[in-house]
């Protein structure tokens, strides 16, 4: 199956959701850290599963990740990826030590705040009730994390939709990948709410 499952128009609309979601998340991160945050390339991409894992970054890279399940009217996962060096930087900005219980709980809190604000914006736009679930923080290979999330969200479907952006923190060489990975059924629901189902 070629990874072309959505029309251009649908992808444009989903891209708009990615922009709004990541824009809101960037604002929340800027408030949390007290410094400006730039957003690079918010995108909506429909990719084959293996390509989606590759698109997230070098699969063997050791990263920290904070993920938050989303329930309510649709099922999705909000995934934040911090390369190891950037995890240390961002924890430093928050005054905690990386890769400790306190550091992990800070990353979980970032996922909470960014995830909840992005979901709030999407909920307003689509009139869907979106409920954030408690975050989890794990340190592992990037590929293992992304593939394990996709195994749950993609299910029977071989195409994954990824709404993602890079959030770069001004004045610190540090960036966070912000991703929303809806389940296959959730994408249909999103498109229906935007009046773009077929």
């Amino acid at each position, binding site marked *: *199956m070629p990874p072309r499952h959505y029309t251009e128009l649908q992808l444009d609309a989903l891209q708009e959701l990615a922009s709004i979601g990541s824009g809101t998340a960037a604002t929340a991160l800027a408030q949390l850290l007290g410094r400006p945050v730039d957003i690079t390339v918010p995108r909506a991409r429909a990719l*084959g*599963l*293996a390509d989606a*894992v590759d698109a997230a970054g070098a*699969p*063997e890279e*050791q990263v920290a990740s904070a*993920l*938050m*399940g*989303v*329930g309510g009217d649709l*099922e*999705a*996962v909000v*995934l934040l990826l911090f390369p190891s060096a950037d995890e240390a930087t961002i924890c430093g900005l928050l005054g905690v030590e990386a890769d400790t219980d306190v550091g992990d709980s800070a990353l979980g809190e970032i996922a909470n705040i960014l995830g909840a604000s992005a979901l709030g914006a999407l909920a307003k736009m689509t009139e869907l009730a979106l409920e954030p*679930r*408690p975050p*989890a923080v*794990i*340190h*592992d*290979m*990037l*590929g*293992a*994390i*992304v*593939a*394990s*999330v*996709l*195994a*749950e*969200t993609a*299910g*029977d*479907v*071989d195409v994954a939709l990824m709404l993602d952006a890079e959030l770069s923190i001004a004045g610190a060489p540090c960036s966070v990948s912000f991703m929303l990975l809806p389940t296959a059924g959730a994408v249909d629901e999103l498109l229906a709410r935007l009046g773009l189902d077929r």
Partner: protein
Amino acid sequence: MGELAASATPDEELVSIGLGSCVGVALLDAVNGVAGLAHVMLPEANAAYSAPAKFADRAIPTLIAATERLGAVRDRLEAVLIGGAQMFGKTGTARANGAGTLDLGARNEAAVREALAREQISIRAAATGGSRGRTVRVCAVPALVGVKEAGGVEVELWGTAPGALAAEGEAA
């Protein structure tokens, strides 16, 4: 992800990087020098179409056929399993949807073991479970399977030429 490959080329490596809850299944015929590797994502299929190795129940027969096409003898095939970790800790799932403990890694491993038992293929070694992602490298000639956990070093999990991997590591 959801893909499979087979090889009978000396020193060629089949690799799956970053197996989390997914299970890597290696099949080897060490005598004829054939190896195959499948990257299984989910226990069982309920879709008409899927990538060839996505579901355990379909992946095993497809992987057997792929190794046979390169000259493997069915009765000589031996299996090595890698992966099936519980990546998301106590919540059990990335979605944390409270639907009980859905340990996808353990379910994948159980489904692969069942599919191999159905085909009467023995499992010679396994690096499964736990909570860390893994990378697997499989080579047909010399027959060996190496595994590396996240943040760890590569170790030889199974092989007919002991120390082959260590020697390679020293050279590099």
